[in-house]
């Protein structure tokens, strides 16, 4: 405590890596159905007492089993942001618009996704639609939707 290396060049660091690159994440019961539906170009929600919840979480907020249903929209931006720089302050080649997008028929939740639109034109309530990858390129991931675009 009373005697420390006081020149920056005297400090030695030990570079390391956290072994977290390889991991499998179980999607869960309804997560799996959600993933399968994405491959088919459909988005599922959970019909619960009181309304539809997106994305589906296997159990309704009241603990009841609920029912998987396809959510068709129309989809609207509930809130959004525009990222101009990464966490270290490096400017992005072009700003990235991210939004919480909620289908009109859902009571709660929505999807967080990228919106491909001129940042100056994005607003809360703006109608957008999913842009799907071609069927042969879909893998059951949220990225099967490439982005949302103005409807």
């Amino acid at each position, binding site marked *: 405590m009373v005697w420390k290396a006081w020149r920056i060049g005297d400090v030695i660091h030990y570079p390391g890596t956290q072994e977290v690159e390889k991991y499998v994440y179980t999607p869960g019961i309804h997560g799996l159905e959600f993933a399968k539906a994405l491959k088919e170009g459909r988005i599922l929600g959970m019909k619960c007492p009181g309304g539809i919840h997106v994305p589906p979480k296997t159990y309704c*907020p*009241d603990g009841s089993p609920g029912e998987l249903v396809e959510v068709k929209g129309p989809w609207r931006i509930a809130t959004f*942001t525009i990222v101009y*720089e990464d966490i270290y302050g490096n400017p992005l080649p072009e700003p990235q618009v991210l939004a919480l997008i909620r289908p009109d028929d859902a009571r709660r939740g929505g999807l967080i*996704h990228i919106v491909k639109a001129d940042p100056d034109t994005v607003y809360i309530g703006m109608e957008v639609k999913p842009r799907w990858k071609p069927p042969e390129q879909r893998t059951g991931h949220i*990225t099967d939707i490439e982005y949302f675009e103005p409807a």
Partner: protein
Amino acid sequence: MGATHPNIVVGTPITWVPLMRRVAIVGAGWAGFRPQVPELSFRELVFEAAQRAYEDAGVDPREDVDAFVSCQEDYWEGIAIADEFAPEPIGGALRPTYTVAGDGLQGLAQAYMMIKSGAFDIVAVESHAKPSDIVTLDGIYDLALDPHTIRPLRAANPLFTAGLDAVAYMSRTGASRVHLAMVAAANKRMGLHNPRASYAGRVTVDDILGAPYYIYPMTRYEVAPFADAAVVMVLASEEAARRLTDNPVWVEGVGWSTEVGTGAVEYHKWGHMPSLKAAGLMAYRAAGIDSPTGEVGFAEVEDRFSFMELLSLEELGLAGEGEAHKMLETGDFSPGGYLPVNQSGGSLSVGVPFEALGLWRALEAYLELREHADKYDVPRAIVASWRGPPTYTSAVAVLGAQ
């Protein structure tokens, strides 16, 4: 169980047994609070803070401290099972020590309950962070996002959820970018009086409004940077506190709450902070406060993102819903005003030491109450902290000098 969603349920009533003894903070120590502390390992940083805290409280950790609480997260440390590193630097080896994987203010709440229960007389709480050791911070943040529905999007900045909240909050309340800039300018300026505020400076509202966006609607002035730091606080029962110090600061109440959590960020109540509201109500209840209006001398609240300070004040009932930006305009939150807020400079000028953030806010309120309680009509502070994106966990403490 009813059909309401967790988002709507706010403030599960918790009734504390009223006759249990009071709990006080009797000493504190800190180390670091710089963008980088290259000469010390995180363990040495913690040791320095601990040694100062025990000296301040006048206790020997091996004789007098009955139990220890450490708040930290494995991923931040880059060490698996990092809680095993906890006891040694705080004098807790071979003594009851446990780890809370959460904000330091949650650790303070644990210590409060341990003493309230009567099982422990003196408990030390520690929290620390060394973000400068993390080479790929964005990667760590990425790992905190839902692996199915959000992480694969590869958002360009993992702090983007704060932007979603800011836009929703401003749309709902009518708070403008000028109000957000006023918060940042005031906090950066007030930090100039604080030796822990590495990021303080004379910044004007115009400087901020003229700067490029970082995460819309905020510039880099409005997003707190990171800091290496350690904080240790010593808590004691009333009997022990009276023995140890002439100016104890009482922990009158604590509360904590998690909203949807990061496994269901889509379900967050955007532009609100229900977890902060619930944590505040829990803390007020424990402190016997029905309504905080007129019951508080000053507040140290969440300001990692400029809009958050205004939102926090509303969720804590210190300003009416949608009223905080109007009170800001009239100077209500300035030093000497109706309710001085973040006189320490807030995290916008001190930075973010991860899980030590909430304990640091408590440290600022503790030092102010210990040294300057007579400045306030009501010598009592609200301390409110949030764990930061992408979490929706908050903790609140009510501290008082009487």
